[in-house]
Each structure stands twice: as structure tokens, then as C-alpha cells.
């Protein structure tokens, strides 16, 4: 796929359809891929990469990039197209300035998951019929391929592109995913168990803001947590309350807009399952206000800017599930 992508990108650059390409750039190791903008065929040949580790969602960069001169070519995985659509809906991306090529998505791998197995000195990784063969400084190691799959790809919701100008490879389908299983499991715990679970997770937070800054839905010009005039500005959680507050509000601000792309959990340096907060909102919205998938289209009203006169009362929270 990588070769075909480079070839197509070069063609589009050559015929002047686009003047830049946003994609992924090879790093020092097999896994440390950086999103990057390529201006020339030479740069593409030298550094463009699309492989098991190109998990990053580049759609947020298009906010900045589409405000520049000329058209940019963006390669979007199925999940990225949801974010892209959502940003179009929010008038953050100038659609005319992007040429979207839909490409097949994951599953993508996460080097952290390999390292968590105690495998170190990673020099290379190859999928061999469901076994990941990892070349290391200390000889070859193996692990089941699916155990190295990034959290964001573990329960893929769709292999279908929501938007594209051109498609490479086969179009896939929207999947019946099991993405709400863990949310349900938590809902069925007791309040004390849930509290303990989230305390353990959220107390790891170092407030690096990676989850917020990577999130395509977090596109405010100025975040309330950065704004001294908001009264809520805070840079570090001094108290456990502030850990909870930041994550509740972060998830709440993207409720109804989060496409569940999973970037927040992917980038968290402390492996906090942040997607479980977002998915809780998605699950609630689906069950209380009707199925809704953010990023599926560019015109519908978002659930939190909408209502019906016979919506359920908040007391439903007190009535269902486990106390």
C-alpha cells in the first residue's frame, strides 16, 4: 500500500492537483512515526511511510493546513474520515483545500504494548500469520499479533470511509463492534468498585494535556483549562478532585462530537483508558436519545444541541443499573 500511496501522491503533486501531502514520516526506529507534510516527490521517496505503526489520525492538522495556500492531499483511514467529517460540520476545515484519499485502516500496532510484555531493544517487527516476530537487540521475540494491537484498534467500529475524493484499496463495512463491552462491565460494578477503578486510573494522570491536544474534537482556540479568566485554569492536579474534574470536563466537552477515534488513549503516556469516558457518553446518547455516530455526516444536529419534548428525565440515572 505504501508504494501505491507514494506513487499516487507523486502523480497528484506533479499534475498540480495538490501542492502538499500530509502523511506519516519514518522515524529512528520501526515504530516512531511522525505525522508530517511533504512538499516534494523526493521527500515522499525518502521518508513517507504507511505501515503497522502509522496509527496517528492526521485530520486535526487539516484545521491549520487547509487555511494555507493551495490544496493538500490527505490520506485518511476509515476512522480518520469520521473526525474529518466532524471537523467539516464544525466549520473548522476548508473542504475545498483538501483532496482526500481513503486508504485501508488498521489494525495498527502500539509499541508500548510490545514493551509492556517486557520485550526491549526493539529493532524490527513483522506479522507472521498472527504471530508478531520482533527483532530485538537480545534476539528474536514473538508475541500474538492481536496483543500488540493499539487500544484504538482493539474494537474497530468501521472499515468504511465516510468521505473521500478517491479511494485506494477495497471499501469496507461498518462493523458490529464490541466497543461498549468494557463500559457495560463498569456499569455493572458497584459504585465503590467503579470509584476505585477510576481512582486507580485517573491518579496516574500527569496532566500533560496530550489527550486534549491530540483530540480532533478539542479544537477550541483557547481551552478553558488554559484560560486564566475562566476560573478553571489549572496546570496540574493538586488534589484528586482536580484529576476527576479535568477528565470529566474534557470528555463532556466532546460529548456528542467525539467520533471515538481513540487517539486520547493511544497517546496517553500513562495508559489511562480515556476512551472509556468518551464511550460512556456515546453509549448513553445512543440509548437515551437514539443511535448517533458523530462524523457520520456533516449536516445532522448533534445530540447535545438538540432535544425532544419527551426526553427522559435525569432521574433515569438513579433508577437504572447498579448503585
Amino acid at each position, binding site marked *: 500500500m505504501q508504494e501505491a500511496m507514494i506513487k499516487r501522491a507523486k502523480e497528484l503533486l506533479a499534475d498540480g492537483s495538490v501542492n502538499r501531502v500530509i502523511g506519516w514520516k519514518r522515524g529512528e526506529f520501526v515504530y516512531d512515526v*511522525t505525522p508530517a507534510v511533504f512538499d516534494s516527490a523526493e521527500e515522499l521517496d525518502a521518508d513517507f511511510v504507511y505501515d503497522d505503526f502509522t496509527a496517528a489520525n492526521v485530520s486535526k492538522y487539516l484545521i491549520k493546513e487547509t487555511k494555507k495556500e493551495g490544496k493538500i492531499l490527505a490520506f485518511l483511514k476509515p476512522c480518520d474520515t469520521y473526525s474529518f467529517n466532524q471537523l467539516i460540520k464544525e466549520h473548522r476545515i476548508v473542504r475545498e483545500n483538501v483532496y482526500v484519499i481513503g486508504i485501508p485502516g488498521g489494525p495498527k500496532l502500539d509499541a508500548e504494548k510490545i514493551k*509492556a510484555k*517486557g520485550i*526491549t531493544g526493539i529493532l524490527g517487527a513483522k506479522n507472521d500469520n498472527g504471530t508478531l516476530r520482533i527483532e530485538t537487540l537480545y534476539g528474536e521475540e514473538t508475541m500474538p499479533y492481536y496483543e500488540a494491537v493499539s487500544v484504538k484498534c482493539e474494537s474497530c467500529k468501521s472499515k468504511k470511509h465516510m468521505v473521500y475524493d478517491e479511494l485506494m484499496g477495497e471499501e469496507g463495512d461498518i462493523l458490529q463492534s464490541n466497543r461498549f463491552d468494557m463500559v457495560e462491565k463498569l456499569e455493572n460494578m458497584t459504585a465503590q468498585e467503579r470509584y476505585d477503578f477510576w481512582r486507580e486510573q485517573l491518579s496516574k494522570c*500527569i496532566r500533560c494535556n496530550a489527550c486534549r491536544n491530540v483530540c480532533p474534537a478539542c479544537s477550541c482556540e483557547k481551552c478553558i483549562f488554559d484560560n486564566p479568566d475562566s476560573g478553571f485554569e489549572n496546570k496540574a492536579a*493538586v488534589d484528586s478532585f482536580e484529576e476527576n474534574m479535568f477528565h470529566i470536563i474534557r470528555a463532556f466537552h466532546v460529548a456528542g462530537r467525539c467520533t471515538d477515534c481513540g487517539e486520547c488513549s493511544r497517546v496517553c503516556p500513562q*495508559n489511562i483508558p480515556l476512551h472509556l469516558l468518551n464511550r460512556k457518553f456515546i453509549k448513553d446518547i445512543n440509548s437515551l436519545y437514539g443511535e448517533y455516530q458523530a462524523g457520520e455526516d456533516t449536516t445532522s444536529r448533534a445530540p447535545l444541541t438538540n432535544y425532544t419534548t419527551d426526553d427522559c428525565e435525569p432521574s433515569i440515572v438513579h433508577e437504572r443499573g447498579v448503585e
Partner: protein
Amino acid sequence: MLKISKSKLNELFDAVSAKQALYLPVDRNDGAAEYKKYESGMTMSSALNTVRSAKDFFFPQTENLVDFKMEGKNIEVIDVREESEDFVIFGVRACDARSFTILDKVFLAEPVDSYYKNRRDHGTVVTMACTRPAETCFCKTFGIDPTVPEGDAACFDDGENIFFLANNDKGQAFIDSIASLLEEGDAAKLCEVQEKARAIMEKLPLAKLSTENFGGDKLTEYFNSEKWADLSEACLGCGTCTFVCPTCQCYDIKDFNTGHGIKRFRCWDSCMYSDFTKMAHGNPRLTQLERFRQRFMHKLVYFPANNNGEFGCVGCGRCLSKCPISMNIVKVMKALEVK
């Protein structure tokens, strides 16, 4: 050399923690390691490094500096400092141990930061030599030998035993305090292990990385480099690199109104954040390019300019594995380097 069998390590931890707080890296259930206060029965992690560095012990993410009581037009200043209790950090790697030297240069310079010094005076750092460096390691670039770590006392693992070596009086005192559990041992196998680790060090992907072309004299040339635009392009402006970094020491001072008083606290800050230098009348670092440049210029040029050529990086590799977009000091050095 004095040693203890690895099977008896917990006896040693129990003995140490009976006298003072003992912190050591333990495995979390997500596969990462973090420093925890030792409680009987805990197993020390064999992971190469913790996600958060050991700087937390001397320079915690948040700390209360001073309290104020406001009454009418009057203010009362309440000094909240307390003498720290003695504590031991066990299993610190060579890179983190060096980071303390770097933090010392900042916090112990006049005027001495009493909060930092208080903890530094009461903390004993016991390091652990590395036997299995990772691909992200490049401490050698900064003149660190991970097989012979610094710190008050150093430990060496030969597979079966842990050997102890004091690097200073504080370290000697630590070893003396546990002497009854230690026995004299033969370090022949240890030398083998060390040789093996050194051989691996030579083979690391970043083994050739050099600081030769960096330093305080390269200010203008690197500051004005055209490379910054490309390097900083994908930067999200988050603080991950800064917060996992053992040498990043920038902080913010903030006030919190508790409803019955004001707590002035200090917390880690990141030069990558947009409000880091923002003033009422403007901001000298308006875009991510300038903020990104600041972080790396500080480590590679400004810090050595002010500290006799010592760099503000220890090559621990945390930013290499944790940056959400995998941009890091190694890529910056390689791109920037003018030979």
C-alpha cells in the same frame, strides 16, 4: 564486594523500610513501572525505567509553597515548610541519577531552593546498574556509563546477587545500616554481566549520537536554523516530553483559593504550553515553533552555556517512547547538527 542474594532482597527492603520510607519501582498492571512506597511483599520491577522519572522525589509535580490568610486589608503569611523525613529511593537508573546533578545546578544555585534542598538532604539515592538497555537509550551520548551508575550508593545485578558499592558518605551510611544482611561475594560473574551490557551499548541504534556539535557556543547558528519549522510542524503543544523528562525543571507558581485562605503552590510547567511566556501585553513566543525551539535550545545550547558545557539531557529515552507524535531530542539533534 558486599552482596545479597536476590532471593533475600525483600528482607533487605523490610529492614530499610522499618527505619525510613523506601521507594522503589514496581510494575503496574498495565505493564509500565512506577515508583511506589515499599510495603512488605512488594516486588521490585525489573523494567528498565519508570514512566515518570525519579525527579518527583525532589521536585514533585505540585507542592504547597506558602499559605496566606486574608482578613480585611491584612495578609498573614504562613510558612508551611516542614523538615522532610529521611527516605531512600532504590533502583534508580544511571540516567535519572545524573538528572539529579542537573537539577542541583538549578535548584541549589544561589538563592538555594529550600524546598528542593530539604528533600535532597534527606533522600538517599541507591542506583541500579543497567544490564538490558533499550533501543531508546542514549545516555552514553552524555558521558554516562549505565553499568556503573552514580548516586549515593550503587547496586549491581549479576543475575543471582545484588552487589553494593558506596559512592559517598551517605551511600556508605546506607550500606552500613544494612551490613548485617550483606556478605562478601565474588564479583567475577558481575564483570561478565557488565561486559555484556557494555557490548550491547555499543550496538544500540543511537550509540553514535554525539553532542560534539552542540554546546553554548552554537547559539545563533542553531537558533536561526531553518530546520525548526519542519521539526515543530507536527508538535501538538502538549507537555508529555516535559513531564516525563527527568531534567525538565520549569515550574509555575499559582494561587488556589480554598474559601478560607489562599494556598500558593508550585507545579510543573511546560515551555511547550502556549501561556508559558504570555504576559498582559503580549507573548514573545507566539507560535509552537518558538516554544518547541526553546525546549531543545535550552537542553542543547542554553544549559551548557550556563553550566560549563553540561547538557540538559541524560538520554533516558522517555520522550522517545512517550511523545504522541514521536518527535524528540534525538530527531532534533540529527536534523539540526551542523558539522
